[in-house]
């Protein structure tokens, strides 16, 4: 089984038990379907996460305690004086932040540096953490700010889709389906790269990182309506650019 990641989702290719190209990560397929008509793409969501998937996006409900995420509860404990809880905060946040930062920087060492800085910022805010506050949008906002700052410092290299090594690529021989899916991933990346930053970020925070629209609005410092509009425009751009693929899937003939 080979996995590629157009739309920031993991698509499973070559699995006889599912369709030829299906989203298989834990991203909120139902939310997407409601908000953006995602399923009109003809890509049915898979209920189970793909085994061995390299995508570490988790559902909001996983680890929730009394309606609060594991990260929220752990940060509360850390702020209250439980030193060991910072490891739990890290474990709850780091995979999602890392995925976001790798996708944004296309550079693992820089993503690791920014993740470290983000987690240390969270650590430094221990004394000012507000009891009951949500950690996830705050953490993404910190990561985004540090990322923007690093770009401003001129450390960002031009985003390049072509010829970029994919660390999650399978060493197996390329099958036609894998090549097609990989081409699709490149096309999606290419379309996203051409979008205005505001649209791309709104789209990625919701689709890739699994944030709610309200959380994405907090991270981006704008209104819910603006985020919905930006994400919708990004979606429409993708839909327009990938119409042939969508049509092929909807016709059952990819």
């Amino acid at each position, binding site marked *: 089984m080979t996995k590629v990641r157009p739309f920031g989702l993991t698509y499973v290719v070559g699995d006889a038990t599912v369709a030829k190209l299906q989203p298989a990560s834990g991203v909120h397929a139902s939310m997407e379907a409601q908000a953006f008509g995602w399923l009109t793409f003809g890509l049915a969501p898979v209920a189970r996460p793909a085994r061995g998937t*390299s995508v570490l996006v988790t559902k909001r409900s996983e680890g929730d305690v009394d309606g609060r995420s594991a990260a929220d509860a752990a940060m509360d404990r850390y702020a209250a004086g439980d030193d060991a809880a910072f490891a739990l905060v890290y474990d709850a946040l780091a995979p999602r932040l890392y995925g976001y930062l790798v996708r944004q920087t296309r550079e693992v060492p820089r993503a*690791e540096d920014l993740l470290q800085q983000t987690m*240390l910022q969270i650590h430094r805010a221990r004394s*000012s*953490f*507000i009891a009951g*506050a949500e950690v996830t949008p*705050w953490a993404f906002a910190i990561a985004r*700010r540090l990322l923007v700052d690093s770009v401003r410092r001129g450390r960002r290299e031009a985003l390049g889709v072509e010829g*970029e090594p994919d660390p999650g690529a399978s060493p197996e021989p390329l099958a036609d389906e894998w090549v097609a899916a990989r081409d699709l991933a490149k096309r999606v990346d290419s379309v996203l790269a051409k979008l205005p930053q505001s649209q791309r970020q709104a789209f990625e925070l919701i689709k890739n990182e699994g944030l709610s629209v309200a959380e994405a609005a907090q991270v981006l410092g704008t209104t819910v309506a603006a985020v919905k509009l930006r994400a919708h425009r990004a979606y429409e751009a993708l839909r327009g650019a990938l119409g042939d693929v969508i049509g092929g899937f909807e016709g059952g003939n990819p």
Partner: protein
Amino acid sequence: MSTQGPSADLRARVLAAASAEPMPTRSAGLVRRAAVVAVGMVLSLLVLAYIGGPQPDGRPIAYFLTIAALWTGVVLVASWAGVGRGKSMLGRPASMRWIVAALTPAALVVATLLAGLCWPATISEPSTIHDHLLCIELGSLMAIGPLVAFAFVRRDSDPVAPRLTGAAVGAVAGAWGGLFIELRCGHCSVEHVVLGHVVPVVVFALAGALIAGSVISVRHHK
């Protein structure tokens, strides 16, 4: 582009770095922030005491008490909305911070006009450029303590719109300086209050956006 999770080595590095830089708990931080704000306020109050302390200075007592109550109310509400973060680590909505930065000076002017309506003789009380400049200087001096204290309270705290937060914090600090000088200054014409007591609020809002914003912003630490 697919992503593996962060390495175990990175996790160990982050946890080690956090351990090497112990941070106070929430309760200890609260005490520390309260102490810093108290020090900032005491410094301003010392300046106020040095220049004579709160006094009507020729103004009707009832007018003085009314204007003091109105300005104090405006400043406290602005402090709550502009410096506090509410229940979110990302602070209060941007619209609220805009309101604090833009409308705090206007609210102070309105408070003065309301008091002036009750005591019409105060509205046209004469004052000079020298009076205006003296109040600008003293009011600004008494706003510095609150500004530094509030910037300390909010340092490294805003990853989204630090300049807007800086403007709100600056306006609040300027309003505290304006309140202190209002308690001392005997000139109560609208012209003098606007030029001598409220203009510094606007100036501090701009200074907050430019200077405090960089302190309030989340920054890369080496």
